[in-house]
């Protein structure tokens, strides 16, 4: 017997199921939507916090003082530094600039500087290290490599603040992981149960189809279509909820905290991600729930 019509029947079944169980289907989609919304909101807040903290951390730098006789070749030295592993950015601070900075810092007490020639202050390189090395150990490694260069007079950097920063980030990441895992688990649990309920309500129908000799995929596919459509609707709903909550919160959150609820991804990426998550959760969820019901 030709099977070319099966696809037609399966699609028709999937959409008929949706129509017939509309209230349950809508309920499932809403459940998926809210679960994904909570998860997405958490990811958003965490991503924002994370990037703000890193922006802050990126200000950490090392100051490399240069021996006076090497000052003339500053440009070449800068290039040497830039090529070194672990170094992100190099900025040259000339003797002039150093003097200017010092004068600015001593505003109102310029008298102290009287009689001091600007050549007294050494030129230096302001160096930022890569994020992976933003820890006391990492900075020590970079510093020891730099110290080996013959033209380096001295290196200054504070490890205390980096130490505190690193442990704070680790603390935050561990908690984010714990909360994220919990939320993901809860989302999966809720979605799996919603789908199971929908399938359970049609247990007899599934049994009868088995008796009539319907193939496994013939029985399963309409449910998977149903689950997928629900998941996609849930994903769209979650995206709308994120946008709505951002708008509502923006009315109440003071300006300097507003970054917390800013969308770190583009709207397209937000919806794309949520719809994809809903699609996978709905599709895979219904497949998994079905496999427990079907004998064959």
């Amino acid at each position: 017997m030709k099977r070319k019509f099966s696809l037609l029947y399966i699609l028709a079944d999937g959409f008929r199921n949706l129509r017939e169980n509309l209230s349950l289907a809508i309920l499932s989609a809403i459940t998926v939507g809210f679960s994904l919304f909570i998860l997405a909101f958490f990811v958003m807040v965490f991503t924002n916090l994370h990037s703000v903290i890193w922006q802050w951390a990126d200000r950490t730098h090392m100051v490399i003082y240069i021996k006076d006789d090497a000052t003339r070749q500053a440009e070449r030295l800068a290039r040497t530094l830039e090529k070194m592993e672990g170094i992100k950015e190099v900025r040259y601070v000339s003797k002039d600039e150093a003097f200017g900075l010092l004068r600015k810092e001593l505003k109102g007490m310029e008298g102290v500087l009287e009689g001091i020639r600007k050549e007294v202050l050494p030129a230096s390189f302001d160096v930022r290290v890569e994020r992976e090395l933003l820890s006391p150990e990492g900075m020590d490694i970079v510093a020891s490599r730099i110290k080996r260069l013959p033209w380096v007079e001295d290196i200054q950097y504070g490890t205390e603040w980096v130490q505190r920063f690193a442990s704070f980030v680790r603390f935050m990441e561990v908690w984010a992981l714990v909360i994220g895992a919990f939320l993901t688990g809860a989302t999966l649990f809720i979605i799996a149960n919603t789908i199971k309920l929908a399938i359970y309500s049609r247990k007899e129908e599934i049994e009868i189809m088995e008796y009539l000799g319907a193939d496994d995929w013939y029985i399963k596919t309409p449910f998977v279509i149903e689950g997928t459509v629900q998941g996609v609707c849930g994903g769209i709903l979650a995206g709308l909820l994120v946008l709505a909550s951002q708008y509502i919160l923006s009315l109440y959150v003071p300006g300097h905290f507003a970054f917390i609820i800013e969308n770190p991804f583009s709207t397209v990426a937000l919806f794309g991600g949520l719809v994809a998550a809903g699609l996978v959760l709905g599709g895979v969820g219904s497949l998994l729930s079905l496999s427990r019901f079907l004998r064959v």
Partner: protein
Amino acid sequence: MIQLFHIFKTYEGNVTALSDITLRVEKGEFVFVTGPSGAGKTTLLKIIFGSIIPSRGSIIIDGRNYLKIPPRDVPPLRRRMGFIFQDFKLINTRTVFDNIALSLKVMGMGPAEVKKKVWKALSYVKLQHRANFGPRVLSGGEQQRVAVARAIVKEPAILLADEPTGNLDPDLALEMMEIFKEVNSRGTTVVVATHDRSLIKRMNKRTIALEGGRLVA
């Protein structure tokens, strides 16, 4: 050809439904299975259908060891069998027409052919005027005839009918038997479980009698 060898079936709670059943039904034969309530008729039919696994014994259908068939091959076998359940097993959320059509759709038959065959089956059981009703609003006898139509519409190789006349008046019961006879004359093996002795007498076919799960002569 259906062959059963020393079939035993014990349900949970140590209820013995069948013990030591050995029998053989030829291809194209028409047989009755009879016996008092609880004798094991339904159990026997469902074992032949493959929805109940016997506790012991073996079954050979068309030369294949029935109990060793991989799950993947079960649906194609089911499509060659028609089962009229004692409790009908109709899908209440679908119309009479769709219930019958489903049995053809699972084979991948085209919509035009499905429509033609379903209407023909409906006319056999005299239910054309109920095609678009849900099973729930039908009388017991009407539901039973839908179940009959669903089983015969696919022209099965084996038709298993469990008490197919239980809810029918004597005239309709006889008409059903005529339908089975016609199906049988086109080559279908027919096994009918019933405790309606008068019906069996009129039909004059081989009868397998069960009592307390055992074959009686």
